């Protein structure tokens, strides 16, 4: 919402010499956020120019460029003696003879953009022909400003080349743009912003002049007939609870709106169109009441406000045909002919045009919800819908209509009908019994009763100190009609705090007494992340979105539950509509990007949630909000949310250890991935078991480890990725990866570790070489050795693996060092030999091992 300082000064006292920045700061102090500051930041020469001729050339990039000669009056030939101004222009929305806005060398545009004569597209451009956004008039950058279009031919009739465009367009004056929060609909008007500025100045008596305080004739029976016939109110709220209609006849359709009004509309970022339209817009900006002007001669019956019927269509002012929904509230002519979507946009057929002489002004109040839904449904956000959605003052309609009537009569030369229609179904606001200590208790500042009441009164509330329920600390408060947001104690607390000044709220550190620190799971996550980093992985955070084709690229089997993914209805990219079921599926993107950027040796890791629906997505209930949903409903709500276990993954390629003075580098391999998972498990003191997994996509079937807890619960998988997967995903050959379930490790490490007693007697070492079938997993051999060796076994170390001639094909030799140590004595050689033989015996039995 914009506001020029001169307009502000009409409604409230603004001290002499106050700048736009100061006004903006004052508004911020009462909670109205500054969006921007326009105007006052252009220094000339910014002048009117007339395009005398141009030569258009299409550039190599296909873009047309116009080399223009422009008459800029007395400012011409500043740089090229004897000629009109030569200016290069990239826009094509103008003709020879058009009046345009030209900034000449030496001028400075908003943002400190200095203009000088410079060579562009092969020729010197002595200035620039301006678009709206370049001079802070609006956001339009589709083409340059053509003054006839911006201001209308009549307005431009007296304008000649060389005239000062800063004054013409009102750019010399500062205009504040405020960001209006949804609870302050009344600030979508100069009336509302001026009131807030007045509050920021301490609300001095007589310092605010409400523009809506005008004489309005009483409603009567002779006005234009209006019927409100809402048979389907939304949530029991009438779609329209007030409809004021006034008729003005005999307006001269050739008369433009006055210059001052056009200038203000331009400053507000709107375009002057015609007197009737300009007046409705002007009044809306002034007081916040959206108005609509109908051509009375295009109406045949009474105005009927009703809901749409199935199948109805309306072509709106923007020339779009809208299929209406039964929830849309409509303004109709006699109930049949459709005129407008109430509070959103009018139809083309009843629009005022350049032959309209008799105008019906609609000033109505519509249900915010109804307007919001229609606006959203039709993707139609208008100045009217923005205001109705946030709540328009329901008592404003008669005054706003009167303001419009007065302006139309004065500038259009018409006369107003005696008839005044005011269908008023509004109900007066009920007073709220306020505990005057509540604002202080909420804010934490001891406000006196007197000060609370004083603040409420300057805000426009009616405060009654007598009546039902009132006592020393309770008063009855009726908020002003423009404040639908003031409902209960906290609302009033905010008002008192903001008028008193939010910055006076002290800073008191709260002191909770029951903190238990991080949970076990939160600690575990940090350990996992730190252990992965210590293992050489760089943590990254990838978007969890994947493509439909990824499951195939990962070679997941048809019945693999990792194919059951959640689908987004509105993904960022149609190419990635699914939520990941594994972290690896998006982590590979990060690896690929690093490789593409020249990092050949990379290890990246990520910890994050994966999305694992079981079966089709269940419908989550949407309970009411009046109280805690009951147990069963809440249980259904929680259950409808798909499982989201926390996984960790890593993926690596290239060298694990660099080449250097110590020798050649070492390429990362499957064992690095396995070791990383073991490192994490060891960091959490969780024992894990490694097994060969010959069938786990997306890993290489011969180089994949399944890592489990000792009870068999799977932690995850690690190894080299399948060559076909690497090809499909465009990843380097021999890329390795691991993915594991952090939640499993969390559960497995939940109990405190119980310390073992360890022996201080010397260890006894003995080596044993076992011959086994080549397919026997080393892990099985080790498990058998451990089983057989007895309780004094301390460690088993596989220190050599040999396959070759000496052991014959189909076999391998595994060399183990067994470390024994008893808790209470030094073991004898005989004892150690016996244990070793028992271990070998167990291995022989379990996996057919023979001692070499």
């Amino acid at each position, binding site marked *: 919402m914009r506001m020029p300082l001169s307009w502000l000064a009409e409604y409230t006292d603004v001290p002499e010499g106050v700048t736009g920045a100061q006004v903006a700061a004052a508004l911020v102090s*009462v*909670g109205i*956020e500054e969006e921007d500051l326009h105007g006052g930041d252009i220094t000339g020469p910014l002048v009117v120019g007339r395009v005398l001729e141009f030569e258009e050339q299409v550039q190599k990039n296909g873009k047309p460029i116009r080399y223009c000669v422009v008459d800029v009056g007395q400012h011409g030939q500043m740089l090229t003696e004897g000629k009109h101004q030569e200016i290069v222009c990239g826009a094509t929305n103008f003709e020879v003879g058009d009046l345009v806005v030209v900034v000449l060398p030496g001028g400075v545009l908003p943002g400190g953009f200095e203009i000088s004569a410079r060579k562009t597209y092969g020729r010197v451009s002595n200035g620039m022909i301006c678009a709206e956004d370049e001079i802070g008039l609006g956001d339009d950058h589709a083409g340059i400003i053509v003054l006839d279009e911006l201001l209308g031919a009549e307005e431009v009739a007296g304008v000649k080349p060389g005239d000062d465009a800063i004054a013409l367009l009102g750019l010399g004056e500062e205009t504040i743009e405020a960001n209006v*929060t*949804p*609870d302050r609909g009344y600030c979508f008007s100069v009336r509302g912003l001026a009131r807030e500025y007045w509050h920021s100045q301490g609300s001095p008596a007589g310092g605010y002049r409400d523009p809506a305080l005008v004489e309005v004739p009483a409603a009567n029976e002779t006005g234009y007939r209006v019927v409100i016939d809402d048979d389907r109110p939304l949530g029991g709220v009438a779609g329209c609870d007030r409809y004021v209609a006034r008729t003005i006849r005999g307006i001269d359709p050739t008369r433009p709106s006055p210059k001052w009004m056009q200038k203000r509309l331009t400053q507000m970022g709107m375009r002057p169109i015609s007197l009737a339209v300009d007046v409705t817009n002007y009044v809306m900006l002034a007081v916040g009441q959206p108005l609509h002007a109908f051509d009375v001669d295009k109406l045949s019956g009474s105005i009927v406000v009703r809901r749409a019927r199935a199948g109805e269509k309306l072509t709106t002012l923007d020339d779009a045909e809208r299929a209406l929904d039964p929830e849309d509230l409509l303004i109709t002519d006699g109930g049949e002919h459709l005129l407008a979507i109430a509070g959103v946009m009018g139809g083309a057929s009843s629009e005022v045009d350049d032959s309209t002489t008799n105008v019906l002004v609609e000033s109505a109040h519509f249900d915010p919800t109804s307007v*919001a*839904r229609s606006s959203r449904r039709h993707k139609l956000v208008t100045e009217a819908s923005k205001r109705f959605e946030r709540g328009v003052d329901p008592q404003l309609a008669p005054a706003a209509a009167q303001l419009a009537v007065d302006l139309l009569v004065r500038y259009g030369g018409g006369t107003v009908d005696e008839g005044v229609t005011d269908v008023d179904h509004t109900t007066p606001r009920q007073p709220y019994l306020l505990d005057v200590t509540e604002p202080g208790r*909420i*804010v934490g500042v001891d406000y006196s009763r007197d000060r609370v009441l004083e603040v409420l009164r300057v805000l426009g509330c009616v405060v009654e100190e007598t009546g039902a329920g009132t006592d020393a600390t309770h008063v009855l408060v009726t908020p002003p009609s423009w404040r639908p947001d003031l409902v209960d104690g*906290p609302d009033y607390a905010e008002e008192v705090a*903001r008028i008193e000044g*939010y*910055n006076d709220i*002290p*800073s008191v*550190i*709260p*002191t*909770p*007494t*029951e*903190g238990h620190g*991080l*949970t076990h799971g939160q600690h575990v996550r*940090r350990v996992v992340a*730190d252990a992965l980093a210590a293992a*050489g992985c*760089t*943590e*990254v*955070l990838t*978007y969890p979105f994947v493509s439909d084709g990824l499951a195939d690229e990962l070679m997941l089997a048809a019945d693999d539950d990792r194919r059951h993914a959640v689908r*987004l*209805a*509105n993904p960022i990219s149609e190419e990635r*509509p699914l939520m990941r079921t594994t972290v690896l599926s998006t982590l590979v*993107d*990060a690896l690929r*990007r*690093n490789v593409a950027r020249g990092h050949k040796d990379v290890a990246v890791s990520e910890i*994050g*949630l994966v999305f694992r629906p079981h079966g089709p*997505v269940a*419908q*989550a*209930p*949407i*309970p009411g*909000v*009046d*109280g*805690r949903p009951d147990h069963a409903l809440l249980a259904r709500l929680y259950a*409808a*949310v798909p499982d*989201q276990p926390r996984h960790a993954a890593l993926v690596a390629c290239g060298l694990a*250890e*660099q080449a*250097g*003075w110590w020798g050649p580098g070492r390429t990362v391999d499957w064992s690095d991935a396995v070791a990383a998972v073991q490192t994490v498990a060891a960091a959490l003191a969780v024992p894990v078991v490694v097994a060969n997994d010959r069938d786990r996509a997306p890993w290489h079937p011969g180089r994949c480890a399944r890592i489990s807890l000792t009870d068999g619960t799977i932690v995850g998988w690690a190894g080299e990725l399948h060559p076909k997967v690497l090809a499909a995903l465009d990843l380097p050959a021999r890329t390795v990866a691991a993915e594991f379930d952090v939640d499993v490790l969390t559960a497995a490490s939940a109990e405190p570790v119980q310390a073992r007693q360890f022996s201080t007697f010397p260890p006894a070492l003995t080596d044993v070489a076992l011959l086994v079938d080549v397919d026997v997993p080393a892990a099985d051999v080790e498990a058998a050795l451990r089983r057989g060796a007895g309780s004094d076994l301390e460690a088993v170390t596989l220190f050599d693996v040999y396959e070759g001639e000496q052991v014959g094909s189909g076999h391998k030799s595994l060399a183990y060092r067994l470390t024994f140590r008893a808790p209470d004595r030094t073991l004898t050689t005989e004892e150690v030999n016996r244990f070793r033989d028992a271990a070998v015996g167990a291995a022989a039995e379990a996996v057919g091992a023979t001692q070499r």
Partner: protein
Amino acid sequence: MSGPNTNYDPVEVAALEPAAVQAAVDAALAAIAAASSLDELKAARTAHQGEKSPLALANREIGALPPSAKAEAGKRVGQARGRVGQALAARQAELEAERDERILVEERVDVTVPALRRRLGARHPIELVAQRLVDSFVGMGWEVAEGPELEAEWLNFDALNLGPDHPARQMQDTFFLDPVDSGLVLRTHTSPVQIRTMLEKEPPIYIVAPGKVFRTDDLDATHTPVFHQIECLAVDKGLTMAHLRGAIDAFVQIMFGEGTRTRVRASYFPFTEPSMETDFVCFACHGSGSTTPGSAAQCRTCGGSGWIELGGSGMVNRKVLAACGIDPDVYSGFAFGLGIERALMLRHGVQGMHEMVEGDVRFSQQFGMEV
């Protein structure tokens, strides 16, 4: 040396003469002094202290002397052997020290050659910033709460007083699950964690909730569809906006340094009433709006205003407490939060969102394991 005298020969007794003993000592000392290595010293030791050295031989002769002469000769030879022994030990120590020194010199290497052969990992700074904030709040007695990223719509919107028609709900561009009426969304803020906590836990509640959130924005310098928030919620008896401000001040000082001042103003959020917006004084220009004193050049961190917007906050709306089954007449609460990416951009001068989401290892690596 003191073995039985099997070689008795009276002719040899001349070896015990003082001059002969002195000559043997002189020869020994000269040889010891001349030894320039431990090997040479070893040879000298054998020659002058060994079993066949002159002094050892002389010593053996003592037994052959008459008792009256034994004492004197024994003393003379003993002293001589003592002097030789001392000289040997001293030279031995000298030569060993020289050798040790030489070895240390010979073993020297150039330690400026690369030492790191394993690749180093690093944590992502977004996680580290969250961790730092979380730790500080945990230290003040708060707890950490988390929730799912794919969330029930009711928990993400309705329970937070964001009804289906609320204008604020339209401001947030939400990822909806297919089918759209499933009642499930990717959470648009971490606030559903607050709701889950309030639904399941009796006050007092003091939680900090970091996490990933989603909005349907395209990636550009200041937007990303996936980003991170951290929110704090407190529900207890007697909490006021002053406590809210105190908690925010603590938060700001953790991130941007002791004594960082804040200013507050009224705002609007559906889930809080009253609501508040906080700015903190720019740490780059200390509120002056210009990084170079006296210059007109605007501070790039704050855009010249001297203040940086932190984020929204407020007292938990009574309707929100009620929807979670907490009696708003007994308890009050406050909540505030901010985007972690933005904090990272401000605190560490990160130029844009791209660096944070692309996964280029160079980005995380420059931060190491702590921010």
